[in-house]
């Protein structure tokens, strides 16, 4: 057995020597050794001098703490208690919000009337395209709806298209914002394929404008006409900044193929509100666009007669057309989705909260 003097320091603390055990293979027995003999050499290695050194950051301050990865930090621990509490809070907030949303949605009175099939005369039912393409046939169509609920003004009139892809890559890009704002000298290739017609630029160019929706609606209540306000149906910002006041339709729908509606060449684009509404492309294949606003209340059980001019061709691709009369709340039109989403989220939160609480009580960690 031999004795070996030895000692270990942690470099930072003051140099206090603690005797430590050293094992030797011969015996495996520990032997305590005092450190006096090696103090002289050891002293230097354990010196914890805190003298300032040049070039290294000062030993305080935010930057120093940052360099030492030692910034004060908030360490939230995801304990079961926290998790249960979070779910409980979500549940408590979400269920009422869901109910409020549902209630708002339920307050909305809405009439949706699909007319694209009903407006085709029986003779053409099997060949609707022939009907819509034949300009000699009158497109007038009268539909009647019975109002179930009291509708409080303002009542919004929307037309709804379904299976109409305004978001198609080829369609949505085919427009020129510059031209709409500044006029025909800005016609560019972004409008293709409706860019020029008969060698002259088209204003407004592009597929969107070319396919302008052109069904029209009038309403009567009994024998009285029902005023539909068609002003200010587009965004004010669009009228003022996106469409030029001195840009007039030019060479529009003059080609061999006529798309949708025509425009009055004497009205500047900034006043062509139907166009402006239409040009706000929809992101989904089913969408509604504002047609006008009725500023009168409609009583329950009243019958509204709708005078429709069924010009627009959705028959070639099986698109549906509907007319929508609806009131509005702080949340918008009728839409139960948010209400149900909140209710489902909130109730499942509460369910999970109870579940976790039970687990936690049964098997506490």
């Amino acid at each position, binding site marked *: 057995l031999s004795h070996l003097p030895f000692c270990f320091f942690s470099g930072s603390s003051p140099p206090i020597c603690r005797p430590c055990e050293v094992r030797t293979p*011969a015996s495996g027995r520990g032997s305590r050794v005092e450190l006096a003999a090696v103090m002289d050499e050891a002293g230097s290695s354990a010196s914890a*001098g805190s003298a300032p050194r040049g070039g290294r950051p000062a030993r305080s301050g935010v930057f120093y703490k940052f*360099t030492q990865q030692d910034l004060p930090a908030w360490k939230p621990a995801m304990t079961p208690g926290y998790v249960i509490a979070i779910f409980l809070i979500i549940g408590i907030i979400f269920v009422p919000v869901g109910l409020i949303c549902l209630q708002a949605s339920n307050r909305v009175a809405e009439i949706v009337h699909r007319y694209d099939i009903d407006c085709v005369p029986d003779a053409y039912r099997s060949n609707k395209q022939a009907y819509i393409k034949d300009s000699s046939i009158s497109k007038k169509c009268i539909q009647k709806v019975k109002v179930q609920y009291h509708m409080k003004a303002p009542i919004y009139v929307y037309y709804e298209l379904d299976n109409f892809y305004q978001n*198609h890559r080829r369609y949505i890009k085919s427009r020129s914002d510059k031209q709409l704002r500044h006029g025909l000298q800005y016609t560019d290739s972004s409008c293709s394929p409706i860019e020029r017609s008969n060698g002259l630029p088209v204003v407004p160019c592009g597929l969107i404008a070319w396919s302008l929706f052109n069904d029209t609606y009038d309403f009567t209540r009994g024998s009285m006409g029902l005023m539909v306000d068609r002003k200010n149906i587009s965004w004010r910002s669009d009228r003022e900044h996106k469409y030029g006041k001195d840009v007039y339709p030019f060479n529009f729908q003059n080609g061999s193929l006529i798309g949708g509606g025509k425009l009055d060449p004497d009205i500047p684009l900034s006043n062509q509100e139907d166009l402006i509404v239409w040009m706000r492309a929809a*992101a*989904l294949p089913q969408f509604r666009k504002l047609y006008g606003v009725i500023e009168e209340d409609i009583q329950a059980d009243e019958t509204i007669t709708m005078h429709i001019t069924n010009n627009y061709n959705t028959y070639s*691709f099986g698109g549906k057309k509907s007319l929508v009369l609806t009131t509005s709340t702080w949340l918008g039109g009728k839409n139960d989705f948010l209400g149900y989403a909140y209710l489902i989220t909130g109730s499942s939160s509460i369910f999970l909260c109870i579940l976790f609480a039970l687990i936690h009580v049964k098997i506490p960690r």
Partner: protein
Amino acid sequence: MKRFVYINDESYQNDYCDNQISNTKYTLWNFLPKNLWEQFRRFMNQYFLLIACLQLWSLITPVNPASTWGPLIVIFAVSATKEAWDDYNRYISDKQANEKKVWIVKNGARKHIQAQDIRVGNIVWIRENEEVPCDLVLTGTSEPQGICHVETAALDGEIDLKTRVIPTTCIGLDSEQLHKIKGVIECPIPDKDIRRFDANIRLFPPFIDNDICPLTINNTLLQSCYLRNTEWACGVAVYTGNETKLGMSRGVPEPKLTAMDAMIDKLTGAIFLFQLAVVVVLGSAGNVWKDTEARKQWYVKYDDDEPWYQILVIPLRFELLCSIMIPISIKVSLDFVKSMYAKFIDWDEEIYDQETDTPAHAANTAISEDLGQVEYILTDKTGTLTENKMIFRRCCIAGTLYGNESGDALKDIELLNAVADNSPHVIKFLTVMALCNTVIPIKSPSGTISYKAQSQDEDALVNAASNLHVVLVSKNGNNAAEIHFNRRVIQYEILDILEFTSDRKRMSIVISDSQSGKIFLLSKGADEAILPLAYCGQQIKTFVDAVDKYAQLGLRTLCLGWRELSLEEYLEWSRLFKEANSALVDREWKVAEVCQKLEHTLDILGISAIEDRLQDGVPETIEILRQSGINFWMLTGDKQSTAIQIALLCNLISSEPKGQLLYINGKTEDEVARSLERVLLTMRITSSEPKELAFVVDGWALEIILTRYKEAFTELAVLSKTAICCRVTPSQKAQLVKLLKSCDYRTLAIGDGGNDVRMIQQAHIGVGISGREGLQAARAADYSIGKFRFLKRLILVHGRYSYNRTAFLSQYSFYKSLLICFIQILFSFVSGIAGTSLFNSVSLMAYNVFYTSIPVLTTVLDKDLSEKTVTQNPEILLYCQAGRLLNPSTFAGWFGRSLYHAIVVFLITIHAYANEKSEMEELSMVALSGSIWLQAFVVTLEMSSFTFLQFLAIWGNFAAFYVINLCISTIPTAGMYTIMFRLCRQPSYWITMLVSITIMFF
């Protein structure tokens, strides 16, 4: 192949390169093409370039090309600028070196020229403290003995002074003659071995002898060394420019790739394949839908006859839509966080060595994650585990053991008395200690003597001898040495030095006593290299016992011996020695053979025992790292018993009965094979027992094993957690690292000396200890630290955090890109599979490079567990080692998460914003905001600790999203004009956002 250098001969035209040093990678003209070429060799960059080019085709691009070109150009510009800056700095330093003025001899007169104009054969003059401009063969110095001192730190990192000698044939030339000498130097073609220079010089008449005189590395001044303590020196340029030893050894090190990088590359590849599949499926579906449905939709106005390439348009659009699946920002983000990890290592005060004023340094900034995945640590012993501060502790002289009681021979009264009594054995012993070395004594003006030694052992011996009153006072060149002993001055002439080599394991010196004229051979070396040389009849048993005893104490032993030589014997041998020394081929071997002829029948004087203390905290460090599942192999050049002793001391192995050592030894192949077989068998049987097994192998057996029984040894390496390899050479160390690497282990090699460099370079991670053996290892290493114990913090804290952070960052980068991409794909199902982009160009670009990249960068500050917890529970490192945080299954988790989140965000958006609200710009912004809200909460949820910087980055970024979009909403020409204001006024928008984020809890 040889090179003939004609000294100072203008008429001799050689076509060797001039002395223009060029370390630059680029020139002004080839920078752009070369740099671009290098950058485009990366697969990711090629991919992004292809995407960017496709985007130029306006028919197919869903977004503005700027959304890819912008980030791409920024990324390229950043890396190009970095390269250019580095290269410019290299150019500046080259220029300085090249334009430095030096004195050379031209037409017999000295001339001042620029360093770059030096040609091979020129005679170059250097003054004190000047840098040597090219590789020179020394021909003259200011010192009459023909020596000079050089500092070679720039070359090999060793900070001590080295002596250089002029060749014998040039001795005695005065400076006038040095201007005129002519001759020829026959030297090898340039190589990078800085320890070898086997050449000859022959001076032409009228200069004295026409003999061939051998040249060694000791006769050279190598480029980048500094001349010290010598007024001037001159030499013949033999290698210039990039053909110098330094220039040749300058190589571009192979870039190291971390396990995580490899995994990220693999996952990128997988995502790329997934993307191709999506493109093919959606592209075909899009074409089918187009032909069946879209042609009926008159408002889309498809032409009936289209060019053939129209069939490609929709797939290519999807390719571009999906191109963001591979995040363009990931490389920049990774580079940023990696350099932050490296900075944190550099800054860390806790791994700053106050004793030597050495901060830790990460030379390789790219591999910090690997630190957390280390499975094997291969460590050197001397200087790494130990302090390499050699202290003479004990000795055994003529059978008497000194220093047993106090543990310090210098304080042993018996020894002091023996010295005082002029005990002949003791005096001889001390004389050998003082003389048999290559130490240079340096006398300071105040009269104290300090020693410059190349080896720490010699330093310890000389210092001990001087403490025992045998003081080496001066040594002039290799000729005369002066020793003071009890006020007596004894002069010796050093005749020859038989140098130490690792094969011979001993060195000798031939001296003649100036008074008596007697010639002595003084030898010292390892016990097994000296003891067999004892003269017949000498009782060496006491010495063998003493060696054993000292080795058990973990002391380093040296055996000292001497012999008196007869003049005839010496002269006879001297001739052979000279011949061998001038050999051009196999010089080392021939010299060794000649040396052996003199080193025999020695009178063994005694054994010296030198202590090399363990560094502070080594056992604890090893203990903790072993707990964290890291296996340790100790590779040392030291002898077996010392190695085992140190291993026991530092917890590397446990003593019986807890641990067991298995020895692999043997001299012949059969013996080694049998031994290996036996050890392997024991290993297999006991691998289930909780016994700590370790095997011990020595260099000789290892050589046989590595050449013949590699497979069995590989199996052993896998089974064994601990191994001690002693007497191994540097190349064997590297071979062992390679072997472990071939078994797919992450290896870390740590060492401090030049002999560890190869192992450090070979390993996945090389750690150098900037120690007493110079900076050579630290320079070659990826990380350099001051003390071994810092390794614990380097691995457990820096390595582990780096791994965790990169694992999160890289997977998150894919998650957020996939999220936005899945939303785009889902949108394509409601937009006629035509490849419409839901998001506009600005949003897409900002989403990728801004909104989602900035918050996650603060992951560099994230700490999942406190440093204390980690160091107290080192087992936790197993998670990193096994790669539990970044592997295909965790990635699949993130993939699923992004798909789930995308579906929920999309469904909520299109249902909440249905009917009259389904305006394109609004809906797009709702979906984008939903993603941004989700991101902010996902990052918050994934981080474990929040400093103010994280709060700032996450919520500041969140606020910035609104500020930026509100700003864009004020620009009338922008597509988004007024959109954000509208949304912010709608209660349904905020209600939608709130419900979007809660989904991450489910």
